[in-house]
């Protein structure tokens, strides 16, 4: 399978959107965690990680002749957040979405992009584990793609 440049850019744009949504979401996460707590510090660290990843993806898209979409003003949150516990659930959900977007990049046969995507799936899964306190057998992989 050979992915066309257009489809690769589309996958990169999807990953960028997931990163932008995560950056927005971590703002919500951090605001619901105890002030100056270790968890709020972790949320800040993860927020910066997603901002940097978005910058990197923007550069990748531009290098391939694509146009990166700007971040939206607000994003629909996958879960409602009113408590610290819900904020942690949101953080894990954001990471799962990011993992899904990067796992799509792993389908690209280009070795560098495939490796980059896999590394990002792993990083997102590790962050999700830290927020959730538990592990998932198939991070980023839709249940429909599993057999049996």
């Amino acid at each position: 399978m050979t992915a066309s440049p257009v489809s690769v850019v589309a996958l990169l744009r999807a990953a960028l959107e997931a990163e932008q949504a995560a950056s927005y979401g971590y703002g919500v996460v951090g605001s619901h965690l105890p002030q100056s707590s270790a968890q709020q510090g972790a949320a800040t660290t993860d927020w910066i990680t997603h901002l940097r990843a978005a910058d990197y993806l923007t550069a990748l898209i531009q290098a391939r002749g694509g146009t990166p979409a700007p971040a939206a003003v607000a994003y629909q949150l996958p879960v409602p957040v009113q408590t610290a516990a819900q904020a942690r659930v949101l953080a894990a959900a954001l990471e799962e979405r990011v993992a899904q977007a990067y796992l799509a990049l792993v389908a690209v046969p280009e070795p560098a992009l495939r490796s980059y995507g896999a590394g990002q799936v792993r990083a997102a899964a590790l962050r999700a584990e830290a927020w959730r306190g538990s592990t998932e057998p198939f991070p980023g992989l839709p249940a429909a793609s599993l057999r049996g």
Partner: protein
Amino acid sequence: MLEDAEVTGDGGSPGPSRRALLAGAAASLPLLLTACKGVQALGTPPPPARDIRVLAAAIAAEEAMVARYATALRQLTAGGGTGGAGGGAAGGPAGAGAAAVAAVAAVRAEHVAHLAQLRSRLIHPPALTSSPGPSVAATASASPSAGAGAGAGTGARASRKLVLSELEQAEQTASDRLIGQLDGLPPALAQLFASIAASEATHVPYLRAAGQSR
């Protein structure tokens, strides 16, 4: 060439010249080589494609991982890891052992799921089906309650930490190996490998946290 044309090899006539013999041998050589190659091709099946070999290796590694976890569960429960009915408070040493056993059992279940998905991607022709390897059902028989009530002192705690530490190392190695094998795999298989690699990486901090619980 006239000399060669005159040579028949019939009895009584002059035998073939040395030049004719050499020319004949040279002409028949490619035919012989082709024939030999054909026989060889029939005798030796082609090696499996790289993705098949990589997948088979991943299955074997996952089988080994499931077996490793079964062994770890036996070691942890033999050391009084469950806390058991007569164990101490949830936060005490026995409680920590129970947490470790629960974590190892949970991670083992994920490896069983990994193995099932990997196996579902590999279809053996009936004649080539190899031995099934360690049985998941068999390795699943390590019951967390087997060693309930055993001592849970300092030695047990050290032993528990060692068991978990070895599992953490194995997980990190497995995750790195899978990610290093992505190049050239079919897209769907590469995605499965990457997802499993991510899962196995998360087992490292998860097990570490289980080992640190007191």
